[in-house]
């Protein structure tokens, strides 16, 4: 064998002697950068070659004087050229972009870059232009409403940046989020540390073939963020981007609440029934509202009737929301500056950027600022055989949270333990001087302490803003190094390493002047008979510090091989090993009697109980909050994937990954069943028999495979938590965390994906249609256990789900001349249902929490669903709400609650949108571009809040529907809000709160945002030697265009205090 090869090589060598070598470079006509991987073909000879990473090529040619070359590159117009030998200088061939051709889209999986043309899986790429359409401080919101299948969950229970890709396959919240990858490695730090200006593109991996390389982490999809890099042989480029965003104050009047007048009327009526009598003599000094205090003073003759009534009437005019709006909120101002440099020569390239963000939040006293620094340098050595890359990503953020928020106006009752907002409380007097509001204790009690020597016990919310000193500083940096060696043509060995570290320090210093500290000191104070005061909680401030830090490393050696055999066969293989370690630790500690000037503090007694000054009947220890945690996450994975294409028409792909982690027990680690996928793609339009000339590109794809998910809170072993000392014995002790679960394993999500990609002639329209089927197997779920086992619930691989849906992405170029009108239409259907779940919760949980407040799955229903009681309207005689018992109209609320089972409830529908997408139109004329994104969410339900007489009859106010209640016969024709009962009936309230008529359809269409930009024209650019100059204006949260539900609420924000406020941004971008 060896011998034949030698003979073959020597024959080749013999031929070479009769030939010449020409060299040159292929560049893009528009920006003069090299086009790596373009094909240079010698016509008539069949021989050809690909250009290198800078666009250079060397080609051996026969010694003819005239040669014809064909130079081609995907996305560019193929160029034929004739050259005469010998060449005087190296060739430079400029290719023009082909606006109508299929763009060579390269997507990143975090392991490799894949050409979309050859991909079998489901990828969505959000490119730089689309990312920059939005103006935001964080990067993730920029993919909102521009990627099919991806939705930002809103409504009940949804967190910030709560993303679902093709619905939620997991039951447990701990596993339900997509994996986020920054460049090559999972990113688990706070996403707000990433500067969006450093991001080049974002790729979303949706199906098994795309994501299974991420194995046990990919079950809910993967989001790969790719940062900007430089290129070889590029002159220095400098770019600058700055913008300012102004945001309105939130609409505090969004959620209707009972008016001050109604509130006061109820208080007066309760007072007349002696409702407050017991609280007047409360041993715990329970607070009473100003109106009740006035009524008491009037009753006791301490205040004349006219005087008291006049003051009460005056309070009816007051609305605390006005005060909040005036004193607690301001216009939000976000400023963003970013600056970057990049360039490169033959052997080296670099990218350096710096960014600064400063957000003045709408709550007075709250601020966010961020500084980021990003640098990377790449060297190409040993005649391009060795590439070395080193980089740093640094970010520092500071968050100030001094504003107590609107909770500042809340009154707390200790018994019955409840709290409520007083609608007529005042934060400041006419001159803006802070006023005290009722909070934890009765006014008379606070007054009585004035002479005792205790600290002032008044609470003035407005003062608290300036007294607060609550900061969070965090630093995050990542050091990257990569080494890539070309062993042979197409065969590369590579090793990538990342070291990351983050430090997050929260410091909340509450000085002796703050209410929190004064209250704490006073509560524990002991006033002796002699008048001296003992203070178990010492004078001085309370300092809470949380110091969290962590470090981690990732290392990934991998080998890749890619070869093209005469454009007939193409093979790409990748195999590697990855090791990941992340160690985090945090400690929380508190110092009492803290003096910020001298950094001194005082020891306190955490052991003994102290009588509460305000209520000697109760005792408490001094709060001890110190704690330490240490977490360790270790993973080892082995992965490989391969793709083979024949004639560029048929592509077969396969991928597998084996994960081992310190979470799984030995069983799962050693059983070694890899998560895998397989896919097939057929470029039908390349077939000889393909004749649809109007549709020059048509590709069909199909994939099948498994992704996984890990719940880090679980372990396969009987695990216990160690505590340093038992309060009694001072001995170390341990508690059992979970009973052994030797079968614990990752969740498995089986995904089938069918796709169709197409593009018409001249790219008038193009798009992708996909259908998928998702099956969640062995999902982490909780099942109830008999308490006699020692546990009441057990969490393990119990549940199954099934989902399916469609993702459509269509682009049309309606006008494509001087005036351009492009339309992007995104349409997704995402349906899911739970197919196996053991636990049956209380019926009340399904009614009040299954719509997102918690996870209460019912087999056969979507994970988040809205359930309700059947509604039979109001009783025309009494205004009582009516339901059904055994099919009969009934007002027996206890029977309604107890007789019906979960199956008897009305299932209204899913609580999360099942159909969603966007409709984005971009118009451009000359240098002006206008783009507006209209989004829609359909096929879901929400339950709106209404009046609950429990709080009303406790004198704690409630929902604004109170004003619409049934009051007299005939009102039932206009209202569905029940009458106020004389005596509170909890069952009646619960029935109404969960009755069908409060369920609304969520379907709506909104104008999400508008971007208007103006680019300086070519001539002016040339004159000013600029590459790009752009000014832009961006408006976000523009408003709802249409909604099915007729009320005032925004269906996506039905339970929020207020929907996101309208913001307007303006910015400038310059590049030279």
């Amino acid at each position, binding site marked *: 064998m060896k011998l034949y090869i030698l003979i073959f090589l020597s024959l080749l060598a013999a031929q070479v002697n009769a030939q010449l070598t020409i060299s040159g470079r292929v560049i893009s006509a528009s920006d003069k950068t090299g086009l790596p991987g373009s094909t240079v073909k010698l016509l008539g000879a069949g021989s050809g070659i690909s250009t290198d990473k800078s666009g250079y090529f060397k080609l051996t040619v026969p010694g003819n004087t005239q040669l014809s070359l064909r130079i081609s590159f995907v996305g560019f117009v193929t160029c034929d050229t004739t050259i005469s030998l010998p060449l005087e200088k190296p060739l430079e061939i400029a290719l023009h972009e082909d606006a109508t051709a299929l763009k060579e889209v390269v997507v990143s999986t975090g392991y490799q870059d894949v050409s979309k043309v050859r991909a079998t899986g489901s990828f969505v790429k959000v490119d730089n232009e689309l990312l920059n359409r939005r103006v935001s401080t964080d990067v993730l919101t920029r993919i909102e409403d521009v990627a099919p299948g991806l939705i930002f969950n809103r409504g009940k229970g949804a967190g910030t940046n709560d993303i679902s890709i093709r619905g939620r396959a997991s039951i447990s919240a701990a596993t339900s989020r997509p994996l986020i990858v920054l460049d090559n490695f999972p990113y688990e730090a706070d996403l707000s540390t990433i500067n969006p200006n450093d991001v080049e593109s974002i790729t979303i991996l949706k199906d098994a073939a795309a994501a299974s390389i991420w194995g046990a982490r990919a079950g809910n999809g993967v989001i790969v963020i790719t940062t900007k890099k430089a290129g070889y042989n590029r002159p220095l480029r400098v770019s600058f981007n700055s913008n300012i965003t102004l945001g309105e104050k939130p609409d505090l009047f969004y959620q209707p609440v009972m008016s001050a007048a109604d509130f006061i009327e109820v208080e007066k009526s309760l007072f007349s029934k002696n409702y407050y009598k017991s609280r007047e003599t409360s041993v715990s000094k329970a607070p009473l509202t100003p109106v009740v205090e006035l009524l008491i003073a009037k009753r006791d003759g301490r205040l004349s009737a006219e005087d008291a009534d006049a003051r009460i009437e005056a309070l009816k005019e007051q609305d605390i929301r006005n005060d909040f709006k005036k004193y607690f909120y301001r216009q939000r101002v976000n400023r963003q500056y970013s600056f970057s440099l990049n360039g490169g020569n033959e052997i080296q390239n670099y990218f350096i950027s710096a960014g600064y963000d400063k957000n003045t939040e709408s709550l007075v006293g709250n601020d966010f600022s961020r500084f980021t620094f990003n640098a990377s340098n790449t060297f190409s050595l040993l005649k391009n055989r060795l590439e070395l890359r080193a980089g740093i990503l640094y970010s520092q953020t500071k968050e100030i949270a001094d504003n107590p928020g609107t909770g500042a106006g809340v009154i707390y009752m200790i018994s019955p333990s409840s709290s409520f907002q007083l609608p007529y409380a005042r934060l400041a007097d006419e001159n803006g001087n802070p006023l005290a509001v009722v909070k934890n204790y009765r006014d008379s009690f606070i007054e009585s302490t004035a002479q005792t020597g205790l600290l002032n016990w008044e609470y003035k919310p407005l003062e608290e803003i300036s007294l607060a000193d609550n900061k969070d500083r965090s630093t995050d940096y990542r050091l990257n190094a990569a*080494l890539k060696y070309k062993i042979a043509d197409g065969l590369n060995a*590579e090793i990538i*390493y990342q070291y990351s570290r983050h430090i997050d320090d929260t410091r909340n210093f509450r000085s002796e002047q703050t209410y929190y500290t004064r209250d704490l000191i006073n509560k524990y104070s002991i006033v002796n008979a002699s008048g001296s005061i003992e203070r178990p909680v010492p004078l001085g401030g309370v300092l809470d510090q949380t110091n969290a830090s962590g470090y981690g490393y990732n290392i990934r050696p991998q080998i890749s091989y890619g070869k093209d055999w005469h454009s007939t066969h193409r093979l790409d293989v990748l195999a590697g090993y990855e090791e990941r370690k992340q160690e985090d630790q945090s400690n929380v500690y508190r110092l009492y009697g803290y003096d910020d000037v001298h950094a001194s503090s005082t020891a306190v007694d955490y052991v003994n109980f102290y009588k509460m000054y305000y209520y000697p009947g109760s005792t408490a220890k001094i709060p001890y909050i110190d704690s330490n945690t240490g977490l360790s996450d270790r993973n080892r994975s082995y992965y490989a994937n391969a793709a083979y294409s024949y004639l560029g028409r048929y592509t077969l792909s396969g991928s597998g990954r084996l994960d081992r982690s310190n979470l799984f027990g030995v069983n799962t680690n050693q059983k070694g069943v890899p998560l895998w996928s397989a896919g097939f793609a057929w470029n039908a339009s390349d077939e000889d028999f393909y004749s649809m000339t109007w549709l020059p590109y048509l590709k069909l794809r199909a994939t099948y495979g498994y992704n996984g998910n890990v719940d880090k809170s679980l372990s396969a072993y009987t*695990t216990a938590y*160690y505590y340093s000392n*038992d309060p009694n014995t001072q001995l170390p002790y341990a508690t059992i965390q979970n009973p052994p679960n030797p079968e614990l394993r990752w969740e498995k999500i089986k995904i089938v994906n069918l796709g169709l990609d197409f593009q018409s002639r001249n790219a008038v329209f193009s798009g992708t249609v996909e259908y998928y089927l998702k099956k969640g197997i062995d999902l982490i779920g909780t099942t109830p256990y*008999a308490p*006699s086992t020692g546990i009441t619930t057990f969490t393990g691989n119990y549940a199954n789900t099934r989902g399916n849906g469609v993702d459509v992405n269509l682009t049309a170029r309606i006008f494509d001349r001087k005036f351009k009108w492009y339309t992007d239409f995104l349409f997704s259907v995402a349906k899911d249902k739970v197919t196996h779940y053991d636990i049956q919760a209380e019926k009340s949980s399904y009614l009040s929490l299954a719509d997102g407040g918690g996870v209460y799955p019912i087999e056969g229903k979507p994970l988040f669903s809205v359930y309700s009681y059947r509604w039979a309207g109001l009783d025309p005689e009494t205004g009582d709400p009516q339901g059904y018992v055994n099919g009969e109209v009934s007002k027996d609320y206890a029977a309604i609650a107890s007789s019906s089972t979960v199956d008897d409830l009305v299932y209204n529908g899913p609580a999360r949108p099942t159909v969603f997408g966007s409709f984005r139109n971009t118009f451009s004329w000359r240098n002006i571009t206008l783009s507006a994104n209209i989004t829609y969410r359909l096929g879901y339900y929400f339950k709106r809040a209404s009046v609950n007489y429990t709080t009303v009859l406790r004198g704690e106010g409630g929902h604004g529907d109170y004003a619409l209640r049934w009051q007299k016969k005939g009102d039932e024709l206009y209202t569905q809000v029940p009458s106020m009962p004389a005596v509170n009936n909890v069952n009646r309230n619960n029935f109404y709160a969960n009755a069908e008529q409060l369920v609304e359809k969520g379907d709506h269409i909104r104008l999400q945002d508008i971007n208007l930009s103006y680019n300086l024209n070519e001539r002016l650019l040339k004159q000013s030697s600029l590459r790009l100059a752009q000014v832009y204006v961006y408006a976000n949260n523009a408003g709802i265009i249409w909604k099915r539900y007729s009320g005032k609420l925004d269906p996506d924000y039905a339970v929020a205090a207020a929907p996101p406020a309208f913001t307007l941004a303006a910015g400038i971008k310059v590049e030279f």
Partner: protein
Amino acid sequence: MKQYFIALIIGLAVMFSGCEKGFLDAKPNKALLVPETLSDLQALLDNSLNLMNQAPCMNLIADGDFTTTPDILQGAWSAAERNSYTWAGDMYEGENAFDWNILYQQVFYANVVLEGLDKIDVTPANSEEWNRVKGSALFYRAVAFFFLSQEFAVPYVEETAGVEPGIPIRTSADVNIKSERGTLQHTYDQILADLKEAEGLVSLIVSVKTRPSRAAVSSMMARVYLVMGKYDEAGKSAADCLNSNSSLIDYNTLDTTQSLSFPYFMQYGNVELIYYTEAIGTWFFLSGGSPVSEDLFSSYDASDLRKSVYFTASRVYKGSYLGTYYQFSGTAIDEMFLIRAECFARTGDVASALADLNMLLENRYKKGSFTAITGSDAGEILNRVIEERRKELVARGLRWSDLRRLNSDARFAKTITREVNGVSYVLSPGDNKYTFPLPEAEVKISGLQQNPR
């Protein structure tokens, strides 16, 4: 050159990847441990205040010795707490039954420890510790079963114990084994078997009274036999216990002006305390708003120090042997004297019974004011012992068991009545309400037979 770089890459890969063994064995959370050493197992048993030294609380509210107001009941921390007071049929209203859940959690811990021990070889070096841990685990399990039997199974009667349902006896940590009630006899057999085995294993002396000593095992056996009506054995066990230590606190030495009469036991000790366990905290007691019943309060003589040691002038209890606001439910020397005295009286040894009773009371009365009890009528003496039991052991989690045991004897049978918000509640001797219902989840999942109410 090429080979050099390949070697470099492989070398780097190996260097960074830290091929150290045990990379995947690191604990995901530092505070997390897989209990496998003797000290890990001991640490589980030392989970004192949160679990292993907790005793049931419902019986203390239900036993009639303390009264309260509707306000306190309204503020109760659980439905079980509120409903215990009126012996309601539905005790839990869908909420957790803490008494049941916490005690079975103790059983689970004990079983985890016992199974963990099976995986640790006994060597001469560790045998003492190994035995101690095993004996402790058996003891905790027995105590948990005993407490459970006092609330959730009918009172022990030897003749019917073979047919009456007991409480689920779980001897394995495997949570997948289904619970069955078994017979009442089986319940008591297991309790005694565990205690007997523990007796030979635990240490003679312990450093902290949260752990069981030999005396603790005897004292608990005395309690169990007494409840079973096996007075010979009860007396013998109490004697075993008293042989090792019979010190009594002279109540004359206590400062009754303090808000708590006894000093904090962990810091200052309490010579009478044999084994520490305390009742699960309730608002009923911790609110300080539930005074002792008038009849019990007035039953103390003027010269009886217990009146002022145990209660404030407003009848609020302040006499916990723990020196805290929590109710002591463990065993103590005074209880052993009373058990032995009762057993002597029941077996006709009047002199010995009187000796024990006088020994105790001498330390309870004002110095010089106590005249020793005399007499020869065993019944009369027994009557006095029973009376002193109630007065001495108030708020110790014993009254409920005593009521259950003594109600079958017409001489001692009691009817308890209460009034809340104008509604009267009555608990007659032999009432089904002397046995609390099982938690609903238990009946639903394990399919256990519910107790009639």
